[in-house]
């Protein structure tokens, strides 16, 4: 298979052949099944119980308001009449539909239920928020990875250290040491400025949030580089001496 995983691929609906795959599949799908059930309860006010046995004979169950409540409610339905039973026993065509249990008049129980429902609502909101954050990070990641790929293609110094020749390695080392010194100097400058209560750069990658650097176009920060775009440096590399340029000396992709 060319794909890393079988997700988004059609899989055949027959018992899995590999035991190891079967266990992993069970674990993932059980989780997904409960997730779907949970969402159905939250979104549509359904009351559900699911019981599923694992390949290892363990019992997994999910229920709202609880497994027990739903199961008991189901079991206390009038059982359907036996097939082909005598006319006498076939007094009803169908089992009598049992109405949902009436709201419990006990106010303590009501209060507890209301409390629990409020807790679930709060958790659901937090979950929604967390899922949005995850989406945002994923998008951010896509942008960053794209830039990394492009950078690795263009520049010999970007990439696995093991792939470099001796000469390149030594050159890179010098440039890195230089960079480290300059970063230290800048850090000192910023520290001094902060102490004197002056303005400090507000753009930050550190907080881990969406940053302007990735070229999202929003946010503060005087980043002079469009991450995805091409800064035309004719011979590729810092030979055009910007204040913090490091002459690595070789054209992009030369090696």
């Amino acid at each position, binding site marked *: 298979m060319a794909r890393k995983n079988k997700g*988004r691929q059609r899989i055949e*609906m027959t018992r899995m052949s590999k035991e190891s795959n*079967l266990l992993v599949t069970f674990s993932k799908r059980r989780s997904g*099944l*409960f*997730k*779907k059930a949970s*969402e*159905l*309860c*939250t*979104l*549509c*006010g*359904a009351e*559900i119980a*699911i019981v*599923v*046995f*694992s390949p290892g004979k363990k*019992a*997994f*169950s*999910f*229920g709202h*308001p609880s497994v027990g409540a739903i199961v008991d409610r*189901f*079991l206390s339905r009038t059982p359907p009449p036996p097939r082909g039973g005598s006319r006498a026993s076939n007094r009803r065509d169908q089992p009598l539909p049992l109405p949902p249990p009436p709201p419990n008049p006990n106010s303590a129980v009501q209060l507890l239920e209301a409390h629990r429902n409020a807790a*679930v609502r709060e*958790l659901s909101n*937090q*979950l929604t928020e*967390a899922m*949005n*954050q*995850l989406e945002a990070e994923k998008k951010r*990641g896509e942008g*960053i990875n794209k830039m*990394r790929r492009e950078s690795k293609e263009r*520049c010999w110094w*970007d990439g696995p*250290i093991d792939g*470099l020749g*001796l000469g390149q*390695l030594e050159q890179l080392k010098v440039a*890195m040491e230089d960079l*480290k010194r300059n*970063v230290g100097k800048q*850090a000192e400058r910023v520290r001094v400025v902060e102490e004197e209560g002056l303005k400090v750069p507000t*753009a930050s*990658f550190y907080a881990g949030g969406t940053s302007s*650097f990735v070229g999202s176009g929003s946010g503060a*920060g005087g*980043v002079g*580089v469009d991450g995805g775009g091409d800064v035309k440096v004719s011979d590729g*590399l*810092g030979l055009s001496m910007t204040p*913090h340029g*490091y002459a*690595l000396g070789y054209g992009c992709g030369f090696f």
Partner: protein
Amino acid sequence: MPRSKVKLAYISNDSARRTTFRKRESGLIKKAEEITTLCGVEACAILYSSYSPEPNVWPSPLDAQRVISRFRNMAPPEQNKKMADQQSFTRQRLEKTTEKVTKLGTENQHNEMTQVMYQCLSGRLGFECLSIGDLYYLSGLVSQNLRVIDRRLEFFQRHHSG
């Protein structure tokens, strides 16, 4: 796959809620069928809703009763060990999701700062835009890379002096 974002809250619009219910109910049953087929296990689902006086029972009331009997015949600790309700399950999901957010956030930060490092090396980026936190991170990253470079240089030296 472009998906419309779903907020996990009760759908107040009646027709939207009904439509969602129908779709998701059948989707849920389908998933239950798939897991039992693919993994050769037993399961049942009982769904009550305001749309029908009778519960929707899968696979069938009789089969569901059999599964429930098997379940109830287990010792109570065995029944309860892997039992969840909305609260516990949602809390679990929340934990897992925030864990993923943190992990991905760290990864993104690392990759982004690596990109910053290489851009600084080639003179494409100046320091003015970096906060003090970024500068510290960058410094650490450069040190880390220097260590790798030195190790690699050692390797070359060993090779050539041999």
